């Protein structure tokens, strides 16, 4: 509607670039914002600053080599990415990996999830302005990284899975350290909540901000905590169990509000569930081999294979189209990050710049995962 009072003040919409070098974009993501004062009119993500064409590289690499490329996608859930590729190869070759492998994969996968959520919690706090959370979160994440380093040899890009099992057995200290970590971390999650969740400023910054309706969540293809914050059942571990997830009891973390606070709660709840999964498995790691021998050159039978796993960010899909040679004909990663990023415009439009930062933090963007 035309304003009734005629004004000589000319107002203009403002275009600003948030990123590619910006503290809130967690990497090299560029957000093109159209703003009117503090209010966001439109958000357009500009991607590709670290696109490495992993899918093209997969077409020239052998299946063993593809595994380590996935470390570099969502580097915070690298183990789960590796697992996805191994599972799809095993599915195609009809290999049944030993129980021990499944259980160890599940434990390390859940530890990865906790580590990822830890980092998210720290960064979330930092994005809304509480810098101290970052250090508390990293203190706990460091313990998980130490467990990984002792067993896998690397802290982040572990490449511990190979098609057919694990590269080598777990370290003798693994069980002990993991139990120590669980005991330690159980005392820390309540502290996380005391520091941030209850805080009235944090509540104001997150409650009712960036509300995603369940219908939109599904239509935008959101998955993981973003969709579960809106009450969509989408946990692949429940729907299509893989590895040892059918052996354990856990609850799918669900919240129905769909706002930033709901997504926060989902992740905190998920950390508790992950702890419970690890606790159920850690004392019952079956004895046995840690790998099934595969041929040095793996050739998948002709056909199409699809494997879905639940990373810390949501559903990762691996689509393989094989023509029977040693390289895949087409290898497609359905990364959770790209689909989750799709919701940002509808969530942020109409809110303030500060809200956009909180929304981006709760979507938990990892740019290499979006760009691949």
């Amino acid at each position, binding site marked *: 509607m035309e304003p009734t009072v005629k004004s000589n003040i000319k107002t203009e919409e403002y275009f600003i670039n948030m990123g590619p070098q910006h*503290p809130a974009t967690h990497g090299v993501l560029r957000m093109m914002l159209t703003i009117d004062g503090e209010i966001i009119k439109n958000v357009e993500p500009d991607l590709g600053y670290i696109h490495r064409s992993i899918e093209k590289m997969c077409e020239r690499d052998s299946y063993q080599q593809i595994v380590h490329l996935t470390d570099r996608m969502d580097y915070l859930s690298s183990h789960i990415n590796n697992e996805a590729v191994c599972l799809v190869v095993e599915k195609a070759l009809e290999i049944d990996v030993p129980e021990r492998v499944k259980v160890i994969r599940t434990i390390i996968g859940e530890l990865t999830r906790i580590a990822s959520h830890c980092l998210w919690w720290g960064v979330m*706090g930092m994005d809304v302005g*509480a810098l*101290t959370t970052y250090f*508390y979160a990293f203190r706990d994440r460091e313990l998980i990284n130490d467990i990984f380093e002792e067993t896998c040899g690397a802290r982040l890009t572990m490449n511990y899975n190979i098609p057919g099992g694990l590269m080598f057995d777990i370290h003798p200290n693994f069980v002990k350290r993991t139990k120590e970590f669980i005991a330690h971390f159980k005392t820390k999650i309540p502290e996380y909540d005391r520091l941030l969740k209850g805080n009235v400023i944090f509540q*104001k910054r997150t409650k009712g901000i960036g509300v995603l309706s369940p219908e939109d969540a599904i239509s935008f293809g959101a998955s993981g905590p973003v969709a579960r914050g809106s009450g969509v059942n989408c946990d692949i571990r429940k729907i299509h169990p893989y590895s040892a997830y059918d052996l354990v009891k856990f609850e799918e973390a669900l919240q129905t509000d769909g706002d930033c606070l709901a997504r926060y709660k989902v992740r905190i709840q998920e950390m508790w569930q992950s702890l419970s999964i690890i606790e159920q498995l850690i004392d019952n790691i079956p004895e046995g081999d840690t790998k099934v021998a595969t041929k040095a050159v793996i050739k998948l039978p002709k056909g199409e294979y699809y494997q879905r796993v639940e990373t810390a960010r949501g559903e990762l899909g691996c689509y393989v189209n094989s023509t029977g040679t040693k390289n895949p004909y087409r290898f497609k990663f359905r990364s959770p990050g790209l689909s989750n990023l799709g919701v940002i415009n509808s969530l942020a439009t109409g809110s303030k710049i500060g809200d956009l930062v909180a929304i981006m933090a709760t979507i938990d963007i990892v740019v290499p995962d979006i760009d691949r």
Partner: protein
Amino acid sequence: MIETIHNWLYSIMPEGAASITEMVLIATAYLALFAIAGLYLVYLERKVAAWFQLRLGPNRVGPFGMFQTMADALKLVSKELTSNDRIDKLLYNLAPYFVIVTALIALAVLPFSEQLQAFDINIGVFFLLAVSSMGVIGILLGGWASNNKYALIGAMRSGIQTISYELSVGLSLLTMVLLTGSLQLSEIIEVQRTGGWLILQGHIPAVIAFMIFMIAGTAETNRAPFDLVEAESELGAGFHTEYSGMKFAYFFLAEFINMFIIASIAVVVFFGGWLSPFGITDDITWFPQMLWFLIKVLGIIFLMMWFRWTFPRLRVDQLLTLEWKYLLPINLVNIVIMAIVIWLNLTL
């Protein structure tokens, strides 16, 4: 010693020139002292932040890293002053001086002890408020002149923030002025010598006034949780994005000196200035009164640092909600209650 310099100066030059020289000397000494004090506040902030965050803090330069901030300042002095070429040159260069000068002017009236007060005027509180709110002009100039969108958003935020919170700072101090009956800082402290600290004397309204003053004061200095002006996760560096080297250092130092000033006002008005608690050191003549003042100020500063390293940042509209819907009405009611308390001479 001061006496000897005084006499010597008057002996070698005419009276007028000597008096001016003396003023310049005192001012130089004062400013140098506060530049260094400001640097140590930065050091303190870094150490305190580190201890809140399970870190060690600066510990390489000098014992316990004491000279770290000195080294940083030297580095900043020696750095090239860069800027983009579409700035408004005059305003851009003026802004940091505006900020630092207004911060330093306020120091003139602070009563460090009974003797050590450079300028004891009868409208001390009023003067402090007026001067400390002038710094925002520098921030606005800096943000505008930088020709940077982030800087402009930061500057505009600063404008609305300071204008709003100025009211609360003023009204909360006014509540206490009702109790003292004077705006002169030395007088305010004298009142507390007999009646005890004002925060204890004025009872509940005084406590509320103190809380409001702390919140509004933190907002006045643009510190977290009200650091919207330079909210780094939203605006990068906010209004000083385009500043580098010493010009940046002025903004940085001004923030810490402002924090010192706000803490000093709180100490003078609520905690009895340089008076010792319950007069425990009143009989010890050699005990420096200034020490009590500094201890109290550091206590308040620590509280402000504690806020900063614990709380998330408010959003800009919530900042205004807090001021106009909560602090201001409470403040007005508080003044009325205080007036009634004094009128009826009640002790609540």
